[in-house]
């Protein structure tokens, strides 16, 4: 069994096509190149602003690498095709935006339940509904977490720049492969369309992970078991004669449906949760700036983390003891570190391009005596350094 994109030939092709160096490109293109470096060789999608350049870049580049671009009839078909392709051994990705992400939710739940690795990039745009289709936003924080039904874990990462998008997309693939789970990349329309300098590394500099494959017949017969105790079952790929049965219904370790026994559902869903909980080191990631002595803490994510850093740097020059905490994996939230930082802070500001979403998550880890305030803006224009600085001064 092989994971496609894993062949030694691919290293030669990547070296030949993408010389290391600095390029001037859009955030969306950086996501696409990140996926290509991570080994993605199957992309199924449906065009939607502001994500379309990811599809365009994949359509142009994938055939050069022997990879497949499929433009499906809708978003539901796109994620469905990805799941099918993932079970044949492809690393797969799609990109979409708000309304398309809504359409994908049912099959995102299917991917969670069937433990299918895939990467779903949501280039957040203004909503609800069609909203401002061409403008960026950070309003899908909770759609990523709770968009599909049932008790389910989800992993979502969120890049803060074009360069970061390249590396975070690779990280998303590695998490998906290591934990046999879908991973959401919460990108946004602002960074997606911003052109900036992005360094493309040599392929050797990139850590690439592959899903666990069954080592023997016995493991292959239990595609939803836990032979290694880490909650991650080896994945018997289709086409290798294992007669694997995959269903989104509650299933036993051997894959066969059993929706009548409470224990079977309990065991399956709890293991899928445990798999994410007990492997925190695989995905937990955050950035900190000046947090050692911060009595004021700014918490921010994605596109807003950049003006937030600018504001913190300026405020520091003014002698304000302020720090910045940026979760890079936003789901599951870096709760432990957040709790530690919240203990030391007198005031916490949560800056984001929405009317207050991550702040609800932050609030869970903050005591009542801390001043907690949102710095929010909607309308498609990102928060500025000055606006965030003003709020910092206001609580200083």
């Amino acid at each position, binding site marked *: 069994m092989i994971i496609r994109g894993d062949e030694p030939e691919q290293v030669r092709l990547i070296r030949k096509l993408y010389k290391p160096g600095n390029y001037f490109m859009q955030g969306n293109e950086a996501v696409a190149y990140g996926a290509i470096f991570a080994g993605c060789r199957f992309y199924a999608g449906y065009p939607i602003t502001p994500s379309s350049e990811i599809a365009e870049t994949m359509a142009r580049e994938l055939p050069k690498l*022997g990879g497949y671009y499929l433009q499906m009839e809708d978003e539901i078909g796109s994620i469905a095709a990805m799941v099918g392709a993932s079970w044949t051994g492809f690393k797969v990705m799609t990109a979409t935006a708000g309304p398309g992400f809504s359409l994908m939710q049912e099959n995102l739940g299917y991917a969670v339940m069937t433990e299918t690795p895939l990467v779903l990039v949501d280039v957040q745009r203004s909503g609800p509904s069609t909203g401002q289709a061409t403008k960026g936003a950070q309003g899908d924080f909770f759609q990523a977490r709770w968009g599909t039904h049932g008790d389910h874990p989800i992993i979502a990462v969120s890049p803060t720049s074009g360069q970061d998008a390249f590396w975070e997309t690779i990280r998303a693939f590695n998490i998906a492969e290591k934990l046999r789970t879908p991973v959401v990349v919460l990108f946004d329309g602002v960074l997606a369309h911003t052109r900036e300098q992005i360094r493309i590394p040599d392929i050797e500099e990139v850590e690439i992970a592959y899903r666990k494959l069954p080592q023997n017949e016995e493991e292959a017969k239990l595609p939803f078991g836990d032979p290694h105790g880490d909650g991650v079952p080896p994945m018997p790929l289709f*086409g290798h004669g294992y*007669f694997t049965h995959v*269903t989104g219904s509650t299933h036993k370790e051997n894959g*066969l449906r059993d929706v009548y026994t409470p224990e079977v559902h309990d065991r399956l869903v709890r293991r899928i949760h445990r798999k994410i909980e007990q492997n925190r080191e695989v995905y937990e990631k955050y950035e900190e700036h000046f947090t050692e002595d911060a009595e004021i803490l700014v918490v921010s994510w994605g596109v807003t983390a950049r003006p937030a850093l600018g504001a913190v740097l300026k405020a520091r020059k003014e002698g304000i003891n302020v720090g910045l905490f940026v979760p890079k994996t936003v789901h599951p939230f870096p709760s432990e570190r957040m709790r530690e930082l919240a203990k030391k802070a007198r005031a916490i500001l949560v800056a984001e391009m929405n009317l207050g979403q991550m702040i609800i998550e932050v609030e869970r880890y903050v005591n009542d005596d801390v001043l907690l305030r949102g710095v929010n803006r909607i309308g498609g224009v990102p928060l500025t350094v000055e606006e965030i600085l003003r709020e910092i001064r206001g609580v200083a």
Partner: protein
Amino acid sequence: MAKKIYSTYPMVKYLRKEALPTALCPGCGGGTVLNAFANAVDQLKIDPKDLVVVSGIGCSAWIASPYFLADTLHTTHGRAIAFATGVKVGLPDKKVVVISGDGDLASIGGNHLLHAARRNIDITVILVNNFIYGMTGGQVAPTTPFGAKTTTSPYRNIEHPLQISETVAAAGASYVARWTTAHVYQLIESIKKALQVKGFSLVEVISQCPVQFGRRNRMKEPAEMLRWFLKNSVPVSKAKKMSPEELEGKFIIGEIINRQRPEFTEELNKLIDEVQEHFGLKGE
């Protein structure tokens, strides 16, 4: 008793024994479809290791998944063909088969059905048409005959049924045939052809649902439904000479279309070859 049937039924080697007996109602046409499919696979000597069977949601989705012993992917409602599209691109040398019902494939899944036919991707679809939503309790479907009674059209159905085979043929499929569960041998032959055709193929099987459809439409017994199929079946050749009024309420059976068109996965791989050639990327 049941055990004895399993041990003497020659097609049992193709079934997941641990999943038997099936959950299908007594008199359901699903068993006939499973039997016909297993016989087609057997007669063509297809190794089940070279098969991936995909299905959606509903009674007919159960026919091959979990019962057929191959790689099986039981998916979300309506999306089986889209899932199968990803499987086929990943495994172009395998036979990818979708077996599901009319509600699943032609209603909620209608969009995927049309576009898979348009792409002409090499997937074989066996669409079991029983005119009803069986598993959810016998509600009206896009295939329910005009005037028929269901739990959600208790007075009568005032919508016109979708002609699935004709629609899929018009959308661009390579092979389309329609039979009923009363035409078992013809059905097996058509499934065999569909499996061998390079391109999108659809075999529509008109199938009896005595429990949800029949008993509300004066056909409580499975045999009554089969007699209804036989009495109202019109071969394609004869139907061509009949007026739309004469064809009202009839089942047109036989091959609707059989033609060659460029196939999607082959074209996709050809394109990749051309691109790699063009950019000088072929291995030394």
